[in-house]
């Protein structure tokens, strides 16, 4: 390791270049992870997101129905009470007596 004790201009330049490479490579890896992390979280949450209700229809013939957009983008009509979703209203004879705490937000 004689280069360390008597640094020449060439070895100095070499070490500076190596340091620059190290910094650039580290930054590149950090940037890739920084982009991948939120992307993967958003992608996973989008895949697992339940279909969002678009509108509510009600009529004498079919009761309460909802228009639902599926993951593929198609819109279909579903019965609100059939799928047990939050869209189905509780019967008037069963009032909510206790506050609901779900820690969902």
């Amino acid at each position, binding site marked *: 390791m004689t*280069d360390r004790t008597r640094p020449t201009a060439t*070895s100095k330049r*070499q070490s500076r270049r*190596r340091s620059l490479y*190290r*910094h650039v*490579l*580290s*930054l590149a*890896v*950090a*940037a890739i*992870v*920084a982009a991948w*992390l*939120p992307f993967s*979280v*958003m992608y996973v*949450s989008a895949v697992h997101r339940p279909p969002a209700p678009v509108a509510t229809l009600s009529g004498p013939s079919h009761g309460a129905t909802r228009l639902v957009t599926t993951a593929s983008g198609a819109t279909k009509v579903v019965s609100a009470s059939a799928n047990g979703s939050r869209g189905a209203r509780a019967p008037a004879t069963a009032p909510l007596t206790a*506050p*609901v*705490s*779900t*820690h*969902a*937000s």
Partner: protein
Amino acid sequence: MTAGAPSHELFWFASRALGVVAFAMLGVTVSVGLSIAGRLTHRPGIAPKLRRFHETAALVTLGLIAGHAGLLLGDRYLHPGLTGITIPFAMHYRPQFTGLGIIAGWLAAILGLSFYVRRRIGPKLWRFLHRFTVAVYLLAIVHVLGAGTDAHSPWMLATVTGLTMPVVFAFTHRMLSGFERRTPSRA
């Protein structure tokens, strides 16, 4: 949170807030530790200052982690009990992710406090053990994204990304400089 008075969830809110701050402090601590080990800066006199900051930040992080877990004891909805917050996978709320968080907490305590017994266990073993602190950060990320109720909100994603970027940068730099030190120069 669909309903319920905010006063009923004071412990829950406080625990979440402490958890976010603990994660932020952990990110800062690990980044600083890695930058010391990887000799990211050569400015004279900076290393002892960074080391002091690293030690202080690590102790604050441990306190915040303890507070994050301890405050859950007061939450009436989760009601985890001492077993739930100290034994991995014992809590009924998202057990895998809270379990990984508990493992991360214990690892942080063991690896962080081992600094004070490094003379007894030997600096070589301590240095070897201390390398696993990065695993604590990885486990914490999984815990935050899996068990955190704010995990998918943009501000939380920005926080996690903003904290992870310097950690990954310092870790890669540390690995590369370690690799170069092990590999003798052919010039």
